């Protein structure tokens, strides 16, 4: 949890940077999540007031989008593509193996806080599936050997 004394100035800084931007709420939420790793509950009233929204409205937007989290993720975020082109290349079987290896289901985080597993619907790597993204880095033709090599090297 960020110290609430640190939180407000940082959020205000982000809000100031977006003043005058048309439709600024998504860019603001992205920036807050980039800064803290998630959107802290304490940030929401500040954002809502800045955007002349009720807290409920801001919360409604926050929770509509899959990307935004209201709690911190693990140290690494692994996204596996579940969409059709990856399914055609055996993604379902691979995902079952990976979930077993990690001992978590979709949206879960390993007990050591190392990895959060998330589904994603298409990374645009559809001729090179099954595809994945680890901490923003794209991976094509994923198999268990590649998974072991990538995940084995993570702290």
């Amino acid at each position: 949890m960020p110290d609430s004394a640190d939180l407000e100035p940082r959020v205000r800084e982000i809000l100031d940077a977006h003043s005058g931007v048309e439709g600024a709420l998504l860019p603001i939420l992205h920036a807050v999540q980039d800064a803290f790793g998630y959107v802290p509950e304490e940030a929401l009233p500040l954002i809502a007031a800045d955007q002349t929204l009720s807290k409920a409205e801001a919360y409604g937007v926050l929770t509509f989008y899959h990307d935004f989290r209201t709690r911190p993720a693990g140290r690494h975020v692994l996204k596996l593509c579940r969409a059709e082109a990856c399914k055609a290349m055996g993604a379902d079987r691979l995902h079952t193996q990976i979930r077993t290896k990690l001992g978590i289901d979709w949206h879960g985080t390993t007990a050591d806080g190392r990895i959060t597993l998330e589904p994603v619907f298409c990374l645009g790597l559809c001729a090179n599936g099954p595809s994945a993204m680890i901490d923003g880095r794209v991976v094509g033709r994923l198999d268990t050997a590649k998974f072991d090599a990538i995940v084995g090297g993570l702290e």
Partner: protein
Amino acid sequence: MMKVWIPRDAAARALGAEEVVAALRAEARRRGADLTLVRNGSRGMLWLEPLAEVEIDGIRHAFGPMTPETVGQLFDGGALALGPTEDLPWMKAQTRLTFARVGVIDPLSFAEFRSHGGLAGLTRALAMDGAAVVAEVTASGLRGRGGAGFPTGIKWKTVHDAAGARKYIVCNADEGDSATFADRMIMEGDPFTLIEGMVIAGLAVGATTGFIYSRSEYPDANAAMAEALQIARDEGLIGPSVLGSGRAFDLDLRIGAGAYVCGEETALLNSLEGKRGVVRAKPPLPALQGFMGRPTVVNNVISLASVPAILAQGAAAYAALGIGRSKGTIPLQIAGNVRRGGLFEAAFGLSLGQIVNEIGGGTASGRPVKAVQVGGPLGAYLTPGQFDLPFGYEEYAGQDALIGHAGLTVFDDSTDMLEMARFAMEFCAIESCGKCTPCRIGAVRGVETLDRIARGDADAISLLTDLCATMKAGSLCALGGFTPYPVLSALTHFPGDFLRAREAAE
């Protein structure tokens, strides 16, 4: 000096392009070679990525797929040498208009963009009045490449004729359909073309502000696009005076947050305004009341990126390509279980069989093709029995199918079509914006009904077709309205996959 190109495209990176680059630099140092490395876009031959090119006697030769261990072949030749890139069958068979520069130039070199024909379309447009530009785009026959196929020129004319001091150009780069990556490849491989197309659109309809709404799943494309926008601003392509014309157009990049439905234009506009990405009822049309209630052109990346070539070469040249009411070229994206997957730009009219078997080379697994889903997750499954079908908007509509954003996913005979139908409903349930009942509730009921069928309850099949009819007729947008396409086509073409469970139960 040795000149080498290795793509910065995400597909190349996902297959180890950065590791190949590091190995190449090390090898060049070891050999004392003077290496000039260009990070280009992808040529679209994605089964060969990372594809390196080496200039030999002024001609680019292709090598691939590269690995860090094989970079020596770029110096000495070897089994990965494929010959001159432009002579490869995949390249020779294409008509590259929208993708003419992708893979050829350094995507962030404004000088290369210009020397390869960039700005020719905009230069012509600057000498015309807005109505004439709109007329040119209308005459080209260009239709919305995002999937709906609405004539681009008509949309532009509506915005051009609309009253309003502030109008907007919104580029829909929320390319969420599985099997599609053409938008990504333009943004990573030739971003200035998209910017040029948007500037032309702005001048044509009288808009001075534009947005590119991209997706968070595309970090590489977004980085390239952001950098290109900065360069475009520095070069005067966008800003208060476009190419010194005194006419303003500026452009901002916005990133979505993982909601598939935001690829629907009205949900996208809500998202862009900072709201929940729920669909709006139409009318009012976005052309009249779009972003912030003002007249707005919402076009797909490929529609906008095709405009510069249309203006540069003339509407007639573009309209001469294609079949029926499907004019010009379409960037086919061949994906899934396919031997040669990638991006192939051709005039409309190729048969599905040509695309899958001749261009794609059949399945990657070597097993027979069972089905091809055309048009993304909301597109129908087609069978090898339909391989004569020519690629065009009306031709596919006539088969209860759609071309969508022209992505094709190939499946082999190990695929369970009941599971694919279930997935279509599950995806709709996850991604539904919740605004309309047929989609929000229907998709959940669809999953339950398919589970009943999977347990051997054949009576549930009529319930499923009934539910699909309701979703098709009653949904506000294509998410709920088109999810029945994959479901019903799977049921129609592969009834055995839906009855197998019943036989097992009996």
